[in-house]
């Protein structure tokens, strides 16, 4: 009896083992089979679609201006989708709000990756926010592409899935510093910068070019506690006799610095990082300063007075350069494929940025080929990124050892005599070219003039945008 039971138990156990090993074998051979066919499904990619995502500020302090970028990117994707997609795959762009809050970025990015199964995180915005998820995205092997920030930190060998895009702030600082050194030789220079990676990287670049002896004052502000005019800082720069003031400021801080300078009759040559110098973004913040109550018609023109003459850097064509083929394409894309964005913002620095970044991504997809995988995408950027056609004034610098995008700028000046930038929010002074474009790097490399021609938009885009 006992033996009979134990025999039955043994045979049952045997059957179980057999069944398990059968299932395992079947599963194994299936996976072998699919591996042999080379069609292991890539997360977020089907025969008909590619799903990408990003976290961007749509609410909160950083939202004004920056909330235009992702909707503008969608204009490019809508155009791509209307013309057959990339190798037949349509692009779905799933961008979500993180309010520029790193803890929100972490939550939302996990959701995008683990729940929405995105193929890549494309065009996520911010330094502190993206640093918070850089490790997660790299350990999940999700490409973190074209981070919207000029931190040096996107070029990190330990983060092979992360790529920067806009010029590092250090490069901006070096190019503007070199310009100050040659064109304002012997003048006293002062700094006003945001006391974080943004301002510190910019100043690092300035200091590589401008002799220490000519820097007479270094003023800072804390962006988290920016409440009122920066009167103390501007008074200190004035008292130190700074004739040139180089600033790394966000748009709100630009306004809060120009106001007290105007108040105390301080008119140095301002040299600003492009982050805080887009006229359609800063103009509305200044419009009332010089006008007396009400009167909106005169407000835009009053703002011209404060912005006029500011020197800044540019890595994309000027919004007012309507003869530029890229600018023409940009305007048509927004009008036809993102009409609400066009009606609300027109082509300003932020929407132009979004379009240019989306062009870059679409080219990377095309180069990655029909059998799209995350690795094939990264390979395409590293191998062919240098030759992508983008609106950039200088070429991208991606390579096996470089995850930096653009590493060059032109030096431009905001001028009331330039043809204006007209957006739905008013008419703002445009820029004129002063010098450049220049290329350099974040290290000790020299600032060199870039003389080759910039790329043109693909014919298909020009014809059908």
């Amino acid at each position, binding site marked *: 009896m006992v033996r009979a039971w134990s025999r039955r138990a043994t045979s049952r156990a045997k059957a179980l083992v057999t069944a398990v090993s059968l299932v395992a074998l079947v599963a194994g051979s299936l996976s072998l089979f699919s591996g042999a066919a080379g069609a292991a499904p890539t997360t977020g990619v089907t025969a008909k679609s590619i799903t990408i995502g990003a976290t961007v500020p749509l*609410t*909160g*302090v950083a*939202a*004004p*201006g920056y909330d235009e970028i992702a909707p503008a990117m969608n204009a490019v994707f809508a155009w791509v989708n209307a013309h057959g997609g990339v190798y037949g795959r349509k692009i779905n762009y799933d961008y979500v709000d993180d309010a520029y809050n790193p803890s929100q970025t972490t939550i939302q990015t996990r959701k995008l990756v683990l729940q929405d199964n995105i193929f890549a995180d494309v065009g996520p915005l911010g330094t502190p926010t993206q640093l918070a998820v850089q490790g997660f995205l790299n350990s999940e092997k999700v490409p973190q592409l074209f981070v919207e920030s000029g931190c040096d930190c996107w070029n990190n060998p330990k983060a092979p899935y992360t790529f920067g895009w806009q010029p590092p702030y250090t490069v901006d600082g070096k190019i503007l510093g070199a310009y100050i050194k040659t064109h304002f030789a012997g003048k006293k220079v002062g700094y006003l910068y945001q*006391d974080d990676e943004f301002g510190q990287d910019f100043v690092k670049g300035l200091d590589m070019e401008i002799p220490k002896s000519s820097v007479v004052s270094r*003023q*800072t*502000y*804390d962006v988290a*506690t*920016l*409440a*009122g*005019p*920066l*009167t*103390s*800082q501007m*008074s*200190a720069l*004035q*008292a130190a006799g700074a004739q040139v003031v180089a600033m790394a400021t966000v*748009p*709100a801080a630009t*306004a*809060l610095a120009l*106001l*007290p300078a*105007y*108040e*105390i*009759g*301080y008119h140095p040559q301002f040299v600003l990082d492009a982050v805080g110098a887009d006229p359609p973004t800063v103009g*509305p*913040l*200044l*419009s*009332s*300063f*010089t*006008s*007396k*109550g*009400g*009167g*909106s018609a005169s407000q835009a023109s009053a703002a011209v007075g404060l912005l006029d003459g500011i020197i800044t850097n540019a890595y994309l064509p000027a919004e007012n350069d309507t003869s530029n083929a890229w600018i023409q394409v940009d305007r048509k894309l927004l009008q036809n494929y993102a009409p609400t964005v066009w009606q609300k913002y027109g082509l300003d620095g932020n929407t132009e940025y979004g379009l240019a970044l989306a062009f870059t991504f679409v080219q990377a997809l095309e180069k990655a080929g029909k059998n799209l995988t995350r690795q094939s995408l990264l390979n395409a950027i590293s191998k062919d990124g240098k030759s992508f056609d983008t609106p950039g004034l200088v070429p991208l610098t991606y390579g096996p050892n470089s995850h930096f995008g653009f590493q060059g700028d032109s030096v431009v000046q905001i001028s009331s005599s330039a043809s204006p930038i007209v957006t739905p929010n008013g008419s703002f002074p445009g820029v004129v070219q002063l010098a450049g474009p220049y290329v350099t790097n974040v290290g000790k490399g020299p600032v060199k003039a870039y003389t080759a021609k910039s790329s043109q938009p693909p014919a298909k885009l020009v014809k059908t945008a």
Partner: protein
Amino acid sequence: MRLFVNVTLGGIAEGLIFASVALGLVLIFRATNIINFAQGAMAMLTTFIAFSVLGRGVGYWPAFVVALACGLLLGGAVQLVLVRPVENKPPLNAVIVTFGLLILLEGIAGAIWGNTNRSFPAPFSERGLVVGKTSIAFSHFDVFIVVAVLVLAGLIGALFRFSTLGLRMRAAAFAPEAARLLGIRVGRLLTLGWALAAVAGALAGVLVAPTSVFSPSYMDLILVYAFTAAVLGGLDSPVGALVGGLVTGLVLAYVGGYLGGALEPIGALVLLIVVLMIRPEGLFARPTARRV
């Protein structure tokens, strides 16, 4: 010397703005022992209403009056609808109610007007006055700030000190039970106290907006510094609020001008700690027989 003058003047202008918000905090604290965390958000809302009125092209002064009038109504309404039900509850209830109101009002303003940064017009030029041949960091608009805040503080002070209504309000705040026995309608007077405080806030709102970047959250940091000012002044003294505001503004300006702008918030913190160590009840607090 010029740096010192400009930094000082900038500090005075900013300090008086802190003072006007602090004044509202103090009026409410005196009357009801509540810290109104929504003081800044209420000012923001009335300023946005003024902004809409301005957009209709009626000119600055009608919009200014509208802002103050809306402040009066909003303050009264908030007290009647939201604060009265929690008045005799544990103090934490009121804190949560006013904090919730702050979030609610900023959300409403964002939904109606958007979270965009804008600029708000000033009634007078923001170009600095010219002394000798140099412009100083004090504009016609700054003169207006000084006059407006001092007039408001003077009116409120006079109301409390010289009018029967003010006497009743003080009685209602100081000894509500006794006042009620003497036939004073304590509830109504508390509503009036909130309304007046909101007017002080509304004034601060329209004064801050032109010198700041105007958005639904533009009063948040002002409120933090105004709170510092109110605590410095002893939380229940209008004169203390004025002085506290000025001291806070000046300390921030000197730290910004001489030590570095990024250190300003630390300057305010150190100031608060030092004052509270030397005089824990604040600079101008009245003797605390009440707090037994």
